[in-house]
């Protein structure tokens, strides 16, 4: 739908303000940055998944005419920098000292005049390794004979990281004992995947020895948090560190952690006195940076014969790789997985999550997971379908029967979440209407009679996003409340400074639209400043769909403060009491005398002029706010997927995908739809082709885009979107956030469709990714009824 004619002042479809530079190739990404005298860094990485380092010989590399420095773990050790804290209160090696613990781990860092020479110099470093036994299967990580990976940690004698639980175990057991039907799943893994943004991670570090100032351009979704952590870790004064996120070519959670390459480029800049650029290649990105998922789940669902779901229990083994570098609020080592009760009204629920180390890359929280909501939604939506299959009830009907009802909101789940608002039935029925559900069922019956295999799958997900109240939610001790600052210039234009960091979500447009909605200033007149920690207020960054719920709220609050201040200035300008003024978008006017008013632009000028201001009112027209969310927000959606499967080859074709999302109030529907389209493509990829796989020796088998497959234009259908709007009652503009919804909701819809298609073969489950080989094997191994 074209947007050429729409220029809303406030919410609505409008073209993006950031586009002009991107369509001209004038984006400014990290690798575009060039500073005088800049050097290039490259990391040498371990080819082995687990080995003792016997020796590192850098002499040949140091003799290369273009090499300026070579840094090893030993060099960093002297400065206490060989290890750094992770966002999960663990530690991670910056450069390996005693051992390497995953294939791809950083072992040395060269700095050279150009990046071709840096790459050449890597081959001149000679490392001798003494291989150790490897464990890659999280189910085996706690076997008595498993090698201990984190022997660097005092008191660590196995590969156990944490145990966590939520819900009421006794109550769950009582319900399971009492219910008519209990369906126990086999293992349902959510495979290790990787967000794979098109731009890899990188940084340019520029340390000025005279001023003591470090400027760091970096692919970071959380510039302020990074700045504070660098200050704590590197001992540099925080006011002397400036982190700048320029344009970022996609993040999807991959750009939240601090990576060793960033730290090494900082150290290298300090050591050489020159700017140092480090940008990883794609293999490094896929094999060493923050992966996503890798949960092995086993659940049971209890219901009565009539289809009333009564209880849900899940036990999870969580693979965190060699270092627990996952980024989630500290009180929740399993993220928000305990939202696995989904969209259903249950009597009881209980989950356990056991985190373990393996000889694989560190991470776990990424790829639009909303802090493990992706895993939770996949699990519950598969289990509801398994139950539907067991009870021989239509899966849509089973869901409708068990949804939390609209009149039950706000609804507190059995694991402690208070969902803010929802009308699930309306959204579900809208998806069924757009899909033509009854017609699809008829078509499926006809095709089955002809030996053609079509599947209809659905998912209904509820997310918990917008972290979060600072008392409950912090990362590395930094509370997840975000600031915003708004300043109006004398000529009525505005600059908004926000804490969050777009990687394509369109903040330069949508946040201007929030100000426009509150103040009536056209979005073109609002400059949105983001990404530079010297220019913007503190916040925890963009991930977990939190920009609109948290920073969007801060923006609304700060705009309202400006509006309130403008009222006081208007009362002085118009010589009436403030209570005698009324607001219409863009101006304060005298009640009963609408001709007599002042536009916001006039008030901006007046605030900078010679007008005598009321007692206690300072000049200028600006405000700041820090928004501490009272709760998270709960966007939801109903997705329906139609697939056709060729039983002779196992190929799955996604024919249609219907997505009806409810993310509350939509600031810019065009931007919202784009977020959904992108997330749906990711989900189809996860369901059908993506997997970061390893062999028994810990060799990564998916270290390039030849084997880590992401969807092209040929593998995706024409997305069909619908919407319902159920505002969040606690959010200032009623918005809930939507950035991750489509990645949360689509994999279960696709897999449910695949399993549905294969039902005639007696297939009840297919693991992701449902590659042609897997689908074919499922057909061979199915147990026909």
């Amino acid at each position, binding site marked *: 739908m074209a947007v050429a004619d729409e220029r809303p002042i406030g919410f609505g479809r409008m073209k993006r303000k950031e586009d002009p530079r991107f369509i001209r190739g004038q984006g400014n990404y990290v690798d575009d940055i060039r500073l005088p005298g800049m050097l290039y860094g490259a990391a040498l990485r371990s080819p082995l998944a687990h080995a003792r380092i016997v020796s590192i010989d850098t002499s040949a590399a140091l003799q290369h005419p273009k090499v300026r420095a070579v840094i090893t773990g030993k060099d960093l050790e002297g400065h206490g920098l060989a290890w750094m804290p992770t966002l999960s209160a663990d530690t991670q090696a910056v450069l390996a000292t005693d051992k390497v613990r995953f294939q791809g781990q950083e072992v040395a860092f060269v700095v050279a005049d150009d*990046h*071709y020479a840096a*790459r*050449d110099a890597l*081959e001149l470093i000679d490392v001798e390794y003494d291989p150790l036994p490897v464990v890659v299967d999280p189910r085996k990580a706690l076997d008595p004979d498993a090698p201990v990976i984190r022997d660097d940690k005092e008191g660590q004698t196995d590969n156990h990281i944490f145990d966590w639980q939520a819900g009421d175990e006794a109550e769950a057991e009582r319900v399971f004992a009492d219910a008519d039907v209990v369906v126990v799943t086999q293992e349902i893994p959510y495979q290790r995947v990787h967000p794979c943004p098109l731009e890899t991670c990188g940084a340019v570090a520029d340390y000025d020895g005279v001023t003591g100032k470090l400027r760091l351009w970096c692919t970071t979704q959380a510039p302020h948090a990074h700045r504070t952590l660098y200050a704590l870790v590197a001992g540099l004064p925080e006011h002397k560190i400036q982190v700048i996120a320029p344009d970022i070519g996609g993040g999807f959670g991959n750009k939240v952690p601090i990576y060793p390459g960033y730290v090494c480029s900082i150290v290298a800049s300090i050591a050489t006195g020159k700017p140092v650029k480090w940008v990883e*290649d*794609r*293999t490094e990105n896929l094999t060493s940076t923050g992966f996503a998922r890798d949960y092995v789940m086993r659940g049971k669902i209890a219901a009565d014969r009539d289809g009333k779901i009564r209880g849900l229990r899940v036990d999870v083994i969580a693979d965190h790789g060699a270092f627990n570098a996952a980024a989630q609020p500290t009180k929740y080592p399993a993220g928000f997985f305990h939202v696995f009760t989904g969209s259903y009204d249950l009597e009881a629920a209980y989950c356990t999550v056991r985190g373990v180390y393996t000889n694989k890359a560190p991470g776990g929280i990424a790829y639009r997971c909303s802090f493990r909501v992706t895993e939770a939604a996949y699990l519950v939506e598969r289990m509801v379908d398994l139950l539907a299959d067991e009870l021989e009830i239509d899966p849509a009907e089973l869901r409708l029967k068990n949804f939390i009802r609209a009149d039950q909101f706000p609804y507190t789940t059995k694991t402690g979440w208070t969902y803010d608002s929802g009308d699930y039935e309306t959204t579900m029925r809208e998806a069924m209407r757009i899909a033509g559900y009854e017609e699809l069922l008829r078509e499926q019956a006809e095709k089955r009679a002809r030996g053609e295999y079509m599947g209809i799958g659905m998912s209904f997900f509820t997310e918990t996003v917008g972290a979060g109240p600072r008392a409950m939610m912090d990362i590395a001790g930094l509370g997840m409340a975000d600031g915003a600052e708004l300043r109006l210039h004398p000529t009525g234009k505005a600059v908004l400074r926000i804490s969050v960091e777009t990687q394509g979500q369109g903040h330069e447009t949508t946040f201007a639209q929030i100000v426009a909605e509150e103040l009536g200033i056209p979005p073109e007149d609002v400059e949105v400043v983001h990404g530079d920690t010297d220019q913007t207020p503190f916040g925890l960054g963009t991930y977990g769909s939190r920009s609109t719920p948290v920073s969007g709220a801060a923006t609304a609050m700060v705009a309202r403060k400006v509006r309130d201040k403008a009222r006081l200035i208007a009362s002085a300008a118009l010589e009436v009491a403030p209570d005698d003024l009324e607001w219409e978008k863009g101006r304060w006017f005298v009640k009963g005398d609408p001709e007599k008013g002042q536009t916001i632009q006039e008030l901006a000028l007046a605030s900078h002029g010679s007008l005598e201001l009321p007692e206690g009112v300072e000049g200028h027209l600006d405000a700041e706010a820090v928004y501490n969310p009272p709760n998270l927000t709960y966007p939801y959606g109903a997705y329906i997927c139609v697939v056709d499967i060729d039983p*002779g*080859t*196992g*190929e799955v074709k996604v024919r249609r995908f219907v997505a009806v999302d409810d993310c509350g109030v939509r600031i810019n529907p065009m931007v919202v739809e784009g977020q959904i389209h992108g997330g749906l493509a990711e989900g189809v990829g996860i369901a059908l*082709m993506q997997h970061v*796989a390893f062999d028994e020796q810990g060799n990564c*088998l*998916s270290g390039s885009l*030849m*084997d880590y*497959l992401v*969807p*092209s*234009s*040929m*593998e995706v259908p024409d997305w069909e979107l619908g919407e319902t709007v159920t505002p969040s009652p606690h959010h200032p503009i009623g918005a809930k956030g939507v950035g991750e919804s489509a990645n949360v909701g689509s994999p279960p819809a696709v897999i449910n469709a695949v399993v549905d298609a294969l039902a005639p073969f007696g297939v009840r489950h297919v693991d992701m990714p449902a*590659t*042609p*080989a897997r689908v*074919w*094997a499922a057909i061979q191994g199915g147990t026909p009824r």
Partner: protein
Amino acid sequence: MQVPAPFDYARASSIDEALAMLERLGPEARLVAGGHSLLPMMKLRLATPEHLIDINPLEAELGYIREDDGEIRIGALTRHRDILESELLARHFPIIRDAEEKIADPPVRNRGTIGGALCQADPSEDLNAVCAALGAVAVIQGRAGERVVGMTEFHQGPYETAVGDAEMLVEVRIPLRAHGGSAYEKVKRRAGDWAIAAAGAALWLDGSNVTAAGIALSAVNPRGVRSTRAEESLIGRPPSEDGFAAAAALAAEDCDPIGDQRGPADYKRHLARELTHRALRRAAERALAS
């Protein structure tokens, strides 16, 4: 991004010059045309030639598709895209367009050449199977002159061909025969991926019986692509579903797939059978319509 190790570079302005350079520079010299087989390997440093001889200047001389003397002749420097778009080829050998539509992706096809693909001899490469099914021959030129080899002799194993030192492939020739039909079937995980398995089939009829057949598979046998047993099983009989099934079973027996990221060996062997059957069916339809 990963980048190649250093090398010397020269451009050849004639075939003779290219051959002379190969002879002078020895085994550490490689020809580069489209570069989409060689350069990716060089970037990963799996190949580190000391000298690259760029033969793109020979495109005028070696980039052509023409009918000549009862054959279709394709110059070695003909780009995949031109092969895909050629109506001459599509009319005579629909297997070629079937295959090219699924080789790599459009930007790669704009540069990659048939010569580069055949000489790289990746076991999953498609044109080798296509040429083998069509009974094509390869024309190799050396300092001493030209020699012509059949595809079975040309393709000697993974990444090994009959092209010797100081020689280059210059042309592929496909004989024209009446009443033929051909087709290619390929299964892959995603657009642009190599085949999990692929099968090419060509049939020629005389009246109602099959007089000649070519069946060649890709990605399921490191050593060779043709299944002569499968071909022979069809000769002298009319094309039929039972015949296709029997030939497909033989082709599946003759292949030797390796289990890997794309799938286990039993699945690939199944695909060999399934795709051979489908390719034969479509080839027969086209032969009957011709």
